[in-house]
């Protein structure tokens, strides 16, 4: 079967995701690692869009790229001396980690490969997800939704309390 536009877009974003994730993991410069995480998260959002999860794609861009990543960059710049030469970040247990990560990837890929002939090929019918997700959050998932909002509130208050405690002492 010839390559369609869907496949080409998928491969472009797959290469971007894997290469930028590799920079996140292997780069010795902390700022390069942080900025290439942007590309990884964007390509994950592109995967969501390819999988017809439009609401999740927008959420990914808003929360991860707009929120979590900016938070991490702030944390990095507040705690690491960026202007000095000593911006490098070392790594430890490299060989052990390589073996563990390769084993985990191998077993995951093996599972995917062995069940590949049984996985469904034809995707489901594409529908608009946002309104359905909204009504699911208000009916089936009402309790997890409320618990998640309480968790967010607790995390917010806890983060503020933890971050300002040292000033009192």
């Amino acid at each position, binding site marked *: 079967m010839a390559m369609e536009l869907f*496949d080409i877009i*998928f491969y472009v974003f797959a290469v971007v995701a894997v290469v930028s994730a590799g920079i996140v993991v292997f780069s010795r410069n902390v700022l390069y690692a942080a900025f290439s995480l942007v590309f990884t998260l964007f390509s994950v959002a592109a995967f969501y869009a390819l999988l017809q999860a439009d609401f999740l794609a927008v*959420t990914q861009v808003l*929360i991860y790229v707009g929120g979590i990543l900016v938070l*991490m960059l702030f944390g990095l710049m507040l705690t690491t001396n960026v202007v000095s030469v000593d911006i490098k970040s070392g790594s430890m247990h490299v060989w052990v980690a390589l073996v563990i990560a390769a084993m985990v990837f191998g077993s995951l*890929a093996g599972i995917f*490969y062995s069940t590949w002939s049984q996985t*469904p*090929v034809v995707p489901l019918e594409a529908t608009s997800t946002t309104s359905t997700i909204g009504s699911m959050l208000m009916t089936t998932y009402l309790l997890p939704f409320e618990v998640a909002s309480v968790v967010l509130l607790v995390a917010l208050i806890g983060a503020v309390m933890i971050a300002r405690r040292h000033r009192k002492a």
Partner: protein
Amino acid sequence: MEFLRAVWQGIMTWLPHVQLAHFLIVSAVLFAFGLYAIVTRRNAILLLMGIELVLNAANINLVAFARYGSLNLDGQVAAIFVIILAASEAAVALAIVLNIYHRFQTINVDEVSSLKE
């Protein structure tokens, strides 16, 4: 050599048409990278980035099964909850990292080993 040729032919017949397994393989790569970062990184914030990679890999799986499997929109709702928990985790963890930095003047996790000054 025969084995390599068979693998190459398998890849070439499998490659063009993207389906569920392709998304799963990419997410497995991201998961392995995240695991590697969690084990090797000394800087606590880079370690957090590894955790985010792992969570994103899990999310790709959830959404892919929501599209191709029988998980339907339940998978996407689960992915939304994962994103919510990742956001709160990042906020609390960065507050802890800031505190550690003010106390120890470093955020290298292998140097921060004492519970009490």
